[in-house]
């Protein structure tokens, strides 16, 4: 391990962090604009041209608000909880590949000591499992926020949310098994490479896995129609009822980051990731750059579908949510594992 490699990692991480924060800020704006469009309103259009400075204004507002501590909160946990949420959201970005490897120019290559720039901060051997591990950690942010607030609504929201996230992690993980079986690897870059011929969503087990994954994805990110953790008509706003100012902003950022992460993951797992369609630029030096473009297009589409679903569907009741998770999605996902195993053994040879 060389120190210059560590330096490049640090630079990549810093740049990635900057990109995510900006993406999140504009995602919130996009959410409000899309909501306005769907509800036939105008939406934010005062700050700057087309309201483009609105996220900046929101950020300044959150930063300059008074920090309020409700009485009898457990102060340490109350402050740590939003930090856990947001750091888990950032950490899960570290393994997302945004594109292939970009070949560096000779002069730069001599300076940094390697010839290709990998657009992934880390590529651990366990890839997608690492992502599951991080998403299972993000439960702690919610559960501690609810517990430390010393408020009945917060605690109820936290308990609901924890039960929901634990339940939906199972179908999420089981639907991933089909993809892992077809790709033969846990690494996200290799799952992407396995889809060079045909996207996994166009295969039978891949399509079933996509349906299960997309339902579980909404539940994991606590978005409508599964945002029972917030449920403002019953629980005020659930686990972050007592949070204000920047601490609330951290929960808010974490939610939007998780949505972008999930959009990236669904693109990588089922929709061909950063492969250029039909391999038209194969071997060309622009292949990697075009790959990034196609990847971002697909991610933007899924990010849009998150907003589309939110402003279209009503909220589920709690018992129906649990029924869908345990009695529908898990059996389907288990059948799908068998189907994908059969597919890999009997059909894959003729297609791939």
């Amino acid at each position: 391990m060389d120190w210059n490699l560590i330096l490049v990692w640090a630079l990549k991480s810093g740049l990635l962090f900057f990109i995510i924060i900006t993406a999140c800020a504009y995602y919130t704006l996009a959410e409000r604009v899309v909501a306005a469009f769907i509800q036939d309103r105008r939406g934010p259009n005062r700050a700057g041209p087309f309201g483009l400075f609105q996220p900046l204004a929101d950020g300044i507002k959150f930063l300059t608000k008074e920090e309020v501590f409700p009485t009898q909160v457990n102060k340490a946990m109350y402050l740590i909880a939003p930090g856990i949420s947001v750091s888990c959201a950032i950490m899960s970005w570290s393994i997302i590949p945004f594109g292939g490897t970009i070949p560096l120019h000779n002069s730069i290559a001599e300076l940094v000591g390697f010839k290709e720039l990998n657009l992934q901060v880390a590529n651990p051997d366990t890839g997608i499992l690492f992502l599951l591990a991080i998403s299972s950690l993000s439960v702690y942010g919610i559960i501690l926020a609810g517990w430390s607030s010393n408020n009945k609504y917060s605690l109820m929201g936290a308990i609901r949310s924890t039960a929901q996230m634990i339940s939906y992690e199972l179908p999420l993980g089981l639907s991933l098994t089909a993809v892992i079986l077809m790709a033969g690897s846990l690494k996200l870059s290799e799952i992407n490479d396995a889809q060079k011929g045909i996207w996994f969503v166009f295969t039978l087990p891949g399509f079933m896995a996509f349906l299960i994954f997309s339902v579980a994805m909404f539940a994991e990110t606590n978005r409508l129609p599964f945002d029972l953790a917030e449920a403002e008509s019953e629980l005020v706003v659930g686990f972050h009822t007592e949070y204000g100012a920047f601490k609330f902003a951290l929960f808010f950022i974490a939610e939007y980051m998780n949505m972008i992460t999930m959009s990236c993951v669904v693109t990588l797992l089922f929709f061909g990731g950063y492969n250029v369609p039909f391999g038209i630029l194969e071997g060309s030096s622009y292949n990697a750059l075009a790959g990034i473009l196609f990847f971002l297009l697909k991610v933007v589409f899924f990010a849009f579908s998150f907003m589309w679903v939110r402003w279209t569907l009503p909220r589920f009741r709690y018992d129906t949510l649990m029924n869908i998770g345990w009695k529908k999605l898990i059996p389907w996902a288990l059948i799908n594992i068998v189907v994908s195993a059969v597919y890999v053994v009997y059909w894959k040879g003729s297609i791939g």
Partner: protein
Amino acid sequence: MPEELQPQSILFFILSGVCIGSSLAVVLHKNPVISAVSLVLSFFSLAGIYAVMNAIFIATMQVIVYTGAIMVLVIFVIMLLSLREETNLEIWRNPVKQIAIVFVVCIFGGILVASMNFNPEIGNGDPIESYKFLIQNGQNSGVEVKGNTASVGASTFLQYLLPFELVSILLTVAVIGAVVIAKRDKLNQS
């Protein structure tokens, strides 16, 4: 430290410090929820130590199984029972317990000193070298191994298949047992 200070060893000392500190907090803190959260932190830093040793699969599994599944349920139950703060001073007043604590500390101190003097033959102490040694010498199955996950999979499903199946039967028995115990009242009523 005799050898050059490497990033791995710096990370190891940071993570083991966090691990020891949070483990002490588990035992000593009065609030049960904070104890449980420190246990999570301790498991997490243990996973970090595995990752420093290049055993990334074990590290990921440590996080998924212990911090992601087991400890969430533990914290869930503690929260639902809403345990209040406890005092841990009484333990020092009982002479039998005092002797027991001194005894335990002596035993573990002895083990610690002995393990620091113990110098295994493999890979002269460097974690990565010893890991490579284990990979090279632990594989007699003849399977080509590409990475960490593959090597764990190969040794589980080829070398240790029978113990693996026995463990899975044991877990199935535990699940069925839990269901039977939970459903006993309903069975008696009907």
